[in-house]
């Protein structure tokens, strides 16, 4: 099986974020890491390859720093990488990102494309789904398990409240992968050393420019939520207090 894994570099989970001057995104001077669900997507792809043979290719878009994500994937066992390298890719919406990816892989023949379920930064959960639409392939989201069958694949999807759905799908297909479905491997030192010599194809913005258009979705303003503290005493007999408390938690705070 030939599998493409879409991976994104996102700010580290505990990085202190600061807004940029126009308050449309964060400042660049943070530490970055691999988007967590993408790491599981890569792991799953590597396991599929180990079982069924084939090739694992990783793709990312973003500035030079994003290459780190690809090197990490190559160190863990991916065979080659594609880097859509330009700062402008950071600001693309999900539709344009998917269009750029589709253009960059137009000469390739993949059996499967994996993305993480969603990115830890924007959290749209859209790129994979749109990419499937652009390619005219079937897709399934929140995947927990993949089994090869004679006709294609059988996947397990996570639904809400502990329910799962099993779906038989033909190939090629796009799957968005849930976090935590396997145990991530380490990049071994020998893998890291060898990763330097694996092929990494660079795609410039100009190469895919004709495939993308204006963003349909734009971030106008970001702000850091104000932390406020408010203490309220609910008085009355215990049963009534409990009832009021539940009501507040459900309707005002929406935590229940």
């Amino acid at each position, binding site marked *: 099986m030939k599998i493409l894994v879409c991976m994104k570099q996102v700010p580290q989970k505990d990085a202190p974020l600061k807004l940029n001057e126009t308050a449309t995104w964060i400042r660049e*001077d943070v530490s970055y890491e691999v988007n967590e669900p993408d790491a599981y997507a890569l792991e799953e792809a590597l396991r599929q390859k180990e079982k069924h043979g084939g090739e694992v290719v990783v793709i990312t878009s973003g500035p030079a720093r994003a290459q780190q994500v690809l090197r*990490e994937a190559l*160190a863990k066992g991916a065979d080659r990488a594609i880097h859509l390298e330009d700062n402008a890719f950071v600001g693309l919406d999900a539709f344009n990102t998917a269009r750029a990816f589709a253009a960059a892989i137009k000469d390739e023949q993949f059996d499967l494309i994996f993305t993480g379920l969603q990115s830890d930064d924007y959290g749209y959960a859209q790129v994979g789904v749109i990419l499937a639409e652009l390619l005219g392939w079937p897709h399934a989201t929140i995947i927990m398990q993949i089994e090869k069958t004679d006709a294609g694949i059988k996947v397990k999807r996570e639904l809400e409240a502990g329910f799962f759905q099993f779906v038989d799908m033909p190939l090629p297909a796009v799957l968005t992968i849930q976090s935590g479905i396997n145990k991530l491997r380490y990049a071994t030192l020998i893998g890291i*050393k060898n*990763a330097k010599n694996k092929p990494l194809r660079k795609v410039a913005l100009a190469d895919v420019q004709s495939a993308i258009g204006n963003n349909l979705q734009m971030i106008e303003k970001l702000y850091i939520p104000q932390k406020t503290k408010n203490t309220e005493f609910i008085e009355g007999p215990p049963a009534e207090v409990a009832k009021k408390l539940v009501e507040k938690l459900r309707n005002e705070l929406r935590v229940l």
Partner: protein
Amino acid sequence: MATTAIPTTKISGGSFLLDDRRPEEVFTPEDFSEQHQLIGQTAEEFAVNEILPNVEKIEHKDFSVTRDLLKKAGELGLSGVEIPEAYGGLEMDKVTAAVIADHIAKYAGFATTWGGHTGIGTLPIVYFGTEGQKKKYLPRLAAGEIVGAYALSEASSGSDAMNCRTKATLSSDGKYYILNGEKMWITNAGFADLFTVFAKIDGEKFSAFLVEKGFPGISIGAEEHKMGIRGSSTCPVILNDCKVPVENLLGEIGKGHVIAFNILNVGRFKLGAMCVGGARVAIEHSIAYAKQRKAFNKVIADFGLVREKIANMAVGIYTGESLVYRTVGMMDAALNEVDKSSPDAAKETRKAIEEYAVECSIIKVWGSEMIDYVADEMVQIYAGYGFVEEYPAERTYRDARINRIFEGTNEINRLIITGFLLKRAMSGQLPLMPAIKKLMDEVLSGPSSDELDGPLAEESKLVGQAKKLGLFAAGAATQKYMQAIQDQQEIMGAIADMTIETYAMESVVLRTQKIIQAKGENAAALPLAMTRVYLSQAMGKIEAAAKKVIAAVADGDMLRTQLAILRRLAKYEPFNVIELRQQIAQKMIERGKYGIA
């Protein structure tokens, strides 16, 4: 990152006292390659996912867990970076070795084990082994299948290791050396498979032997009950007519001291790197605790005196990183010139590393005292909870203490620092004496005004002053004692202190300048604040040490004249360190851990 200049010029050891360096000439953590970063990440993940969940078991000496972890570390390649590829290693640079030591050191009990295994347990064979010895042992050491240990110390000879009592005699058939004696405090002994044992052949010729656990006549004594690093094994090794095949003699007969000194030497930079890694864990705990502990209706992280401690911890880590990576960067530049295919490669490699004996000793002393300070303040922040076992401060405090004792006590290392520099000065290898003379002429001709400009001009000037203070004191002392200065330990120690602080000062300044060059002054506010705080601390220490020396070597009018010069050299406008520490602490508390952005 990959775009920053990586220094490639070879710089001679100890020359920092005389020459001024430019930021482009030093290696800093900001220069890590993609590969260094990925390897650091693997070491970090290994520590967090594999080591930390097992701390309780290891602390109670369940060494089967330790062996498993050593095996896993070996499989990942973490234990093979200093071993040539031909013998199952990865043959990577010293920066990589330091990065791993730095990130793996999240729990001292295991870090000591791993450090003992990959350092003093393995490197004697890398640098001194025969082809046969390397083939036989290195691949399995790299893989963590067998564990190494280093048996030099004895009950009656620790620092004075050359004076050991363990003896070796050749058997009558000439096939074996028969070893008799008892080694003390041997790290990993409880479960190690291979020991580098030092003994005197015929009671005279100090030599090293590779002794397998299975050889007849070697036995391991009981575990020591230790103050700290209880998760490591420390036992006596008893040799009772132990039969060691002659092919297991390591290096040359009578040249054991070359092995003993070189191996400790090369290990020291990693000890420093581990101290930095340990301090990063300690500050993280300290901040987390300070943010949630309340007193007088505030969290204690709001109190200036607590914030000062957190800031100082951060300054320690920043300076430690600067020192360690500058030094390994220099080593790598020198090692790049070694022809790896030449038959003398091992020897040339050793020589390239030995060049930086002073810098490695500095890192060892400085790093061990930094982590001790950090651990001590961590206990203070936890206070009552810092004194009880349920919280991490107590163990951190106990664990930190050993670093000033092993791998050469800090006293011995201070003597090495000054001794090595003086030796180089006497032989003309390091033009220290002409520099001292030039300085003396200069100070006698009155105040000079060497104006510098550019980022950190003021700070660079301070580094220059620190160097002059050191040279001035060393000059005064050598004038009085000449060669006999070797017997004036307190003065040797004071000169070492000035040397250590000068190297640290210069290392932080150059690193911060390099950051400013890459990112601009605005992005470097935190590094700049940490640099200034460090310079203030260090200048205080250097001035005190210089005064101590001058007061010991001069009196009367001479003393007054020299003190006047000293004051002039030590003069600078103080930084507002209260404000700076507040800023530093604020950033650390916001982030919840150490960082420079």
